[in-house]
């Protein structure tokens, strides 16, 4: 999916700055949706006005906690990607058309819109980390686990902030399940120790 971020990667601005401009956010998200749609054989309808609302809300949330990130820039990249995921889920700019040959055990078919939002945020995070810190990102095994996706969808519908913790989980970091909407950087403790999410449902 990385190739679909070419608008950001070929940009004269660093990716971390380009993504904070609506023009690049919208155009790269649009390209990304096309790429995922082609890959997963699904049709999506994109409401660009809702996408701008998600962008605006994310931008405000990003700016409001940026000062806390001065000595923890790497961690803040993941947190910012989580904020982006939260706002995309909240404003829901995508609608997927249903197909009869969907496989409900595939995350991309189980929750197509959520799959795009999460993939986009993880891709942006990976691109920023690679460009700014020369670190290649791995994908956590939970990304393909349908039981985690059940919890992801259910928890984020009940509490939007949990989207931030789920992004941390899918990115292979230790999630902050307690106060996911607050970037914790005091005393050198970036994230509290892992504990199960409050409303994590167990699947039989």
């Amino acid at each position, binding site marked *: 999916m990385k190739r679909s971020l070419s608008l950001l990667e070929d940009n004269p601005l660093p990716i971390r700055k380009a993504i904070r401009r609506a023009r690049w956010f*919208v155009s790269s998200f649009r390209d990304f949706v096309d790429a995922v749609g082609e890959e997963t054989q699904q049709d999506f309808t994109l409401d660009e006005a809702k996408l701008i609302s998600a962008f605006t809300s994310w931008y405000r949330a990003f700016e409001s906690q940026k000062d806390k990130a001065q000595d923890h820039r790497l961690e803040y990249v993941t947190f910012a990607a989580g904020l982006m995921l939260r706002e995309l889920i909240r404003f829901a700019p995508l609608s997927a058309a249903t197909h009869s040959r969907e496989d409900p055990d595939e995350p991309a078919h189980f929750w197509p819109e959520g799959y795009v939002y999460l993939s986009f945020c993880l891709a942006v995070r990976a691109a920023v980390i690679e460009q700014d810190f020369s670190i290649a990102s791995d994908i956590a095994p939970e990304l393909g686990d349908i039981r985690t996706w059940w919890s992801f969808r259910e928890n984020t519908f009940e509490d939007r902030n949990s989207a931030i913790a789920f992004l941390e989980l899918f990115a292979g970091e230790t999630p902050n399940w307690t106060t996911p909407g607050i970037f914790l950087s005091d005393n050198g403790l970036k994230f509290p120790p892992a504990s199960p999410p409050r409303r994590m449902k167990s699947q039989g």
Partner: protein
Amino acid sequence: MRHLPTLPDPGELALPLRDFVRGLRQKTAPSRSRLKPALELLPTPLRDRLEQIARDFSEGEVASMRVRNPGDAVIARAAAGLKGADVASAEMAAATAFATAVLLKTAGKSDLLISETVAAICWHEARHSPHRATTYMHALNERELVGTAPGLAHGAIHLGEADHRRIYLALVLWLLADRSISGVAEADLLNISRWLADDVADEVDSYRHQPDRLERLLREHAERI
């Protein structure tokens, strides 16, 4: 045989004449929505024929009333003007009229008249202000850049007060947007400005009596485009 004179292309005329011709065309172009009640009283064959005539006339007139894209160089100078550079009133008016026409078209209100003369007057007011963007936006709203030609009923092509404010807000955000990096079409920038204006209209409105704060706010929002 003598041919009747035809109306010139408004884009080729000086500012007040352009407005005059556009107004005349708006006034003479019969809107299908205004004819509809009368047409419904007629027998079908006659009604169909008249509707066709009205459609042909209307489409031709609207096309000739279309405001021209003044080109990237003029838009760039107008954008720089809002941030403090010198720009001719005619260029600011041309960029303003173009963007407003696009925004009105998106809102389904292409029939409304845009006055480049009003835009030039508003810019004349704003260019000496320490808060150019704010003053220009307020002036466009107060002097009614967009409207109907005198003598026309508002009716179907009426634009509400909030819609007026949002169009001028989108216009100003678009002009303030960074153009130092190319690669994005002006139409896309305008679309983003329109969505952004919808999103921040209430916040901007709440600062309408604080020009210092509002000017900063407009620039901050435009930085996001």
